[in-house]
């Protein structure tokens, strides 16, 4: 399991005031790493492969304006898969410049884009669209947890980066 992902990507130097403060929050940082493992590399991935999850996370990190986090997830995509399938995910899912053509994958990408960029606009119809594209109840929850986690993680990194300048 990868550790201290948020601290590394936020560039928190050891011995800095923020690093010292976060010693009191070591359990939160450990559980954040464990959450990363649970949504990116779960033991039971269901209908969402580890490679697809990494590609979706890279895409969300890009929407969230976090280049370092997007690079982290592109590296995870490389680790998770190789060959044409992984290259296709990198080209069509892991970048905000593109949309995949295949129906199920397009519905998944559309949903993570919505949940990341305009969660307030989400309605019952968006869940129905995932079902219509072939996702079952468990995959819909898995996809939602992945999207929600990346949004949490990117905000912790953005917030910590911002705080470091004033400590």
């Amino acid at each position, binding site marked *: 399991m990868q550790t201290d992902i948020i601290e590394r990507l936020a560039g928190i130097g050891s011995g800095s005031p923020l690093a010292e403060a976060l010693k009191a929050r070591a359990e939160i940082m450990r559980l954040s790493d464990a959450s990363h493992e649970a949504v990116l590399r779960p033991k039971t991935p269901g209908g969402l492969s580890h490679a697809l999850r990494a590609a979706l996370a890279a895409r969300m990190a890009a929407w969230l304006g976090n280049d370092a986090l997007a690079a982290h997830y592109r590296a995870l995509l490389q680790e998770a898969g190789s060959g044409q399938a992984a290259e296709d995910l990198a080209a069509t899912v892991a970048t905000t410049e593109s949309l995949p053509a295949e129906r199920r994958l397009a519905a998944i990408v559309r949903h993570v884009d919505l949940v990341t960029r305009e969660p307030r606009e989400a309605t019952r119809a968006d869940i129905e669209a995932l079902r219509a594209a072939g996702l079952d109840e468990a995959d819909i929850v898995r996809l939602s947890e992945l999207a929600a986690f990346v949004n949490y993680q990117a*905000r912790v990194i953005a917030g910590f980066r911002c705080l470091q300048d004033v400590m």
Partner: protein
Amino acid sequence: MSEPVHTFTAEPLQWSPYLTPVRLDEATPEQLDAMKVTPSNKKVSDYVLTLAHDPESLAVRSPLFNAIMYGRDGLSRAERELGAVGASIVNRCVYCASVHAAQFNRLTERTDVIARIFADGPAAELEEHQQAIFDFAVKLSETPPAVTHKDAVALRDTGLSALEMADLVLSAAIFGWANRLMHTLGEPRRPSA
């Protein structure tokens, strides 16, 4: 069933999932463990039963959420709730907003702050200390996050310690997670009379 609620309120609401929750009598040992179901604790909400479709995530997210919102020292309970409300306003998660607004009101024994936030949204004007906290949570919740150096300076200048500022980041960010489950997987309704 009663009509869905789409406006902010500090009154208690029920949450109704768009998905079929896991049935407690059909749950696997892993799901029961993630839901913290024990022989003496068999009360599980529809929200938790819905999230039990992905027990690996649920098992780590619940303790993470509790550590962020209820951990010792650092930012006060009420101010963590204000961070949660800021995020929930941006994401229009009416259910999360109602729960955490009610907590804020209970902890501070006042209702005017939440009333102003519900009336004016992200632009609400508050007392200086609460304004710095609310504005930071609101801006962190935008996509992409819009917090700037100035927002961090405002937190420091209102007297927050390094740990308190870190706690605010965490409490607003965990609602970037919670809102994206609550608001996208179901909707709030008024409890039936």
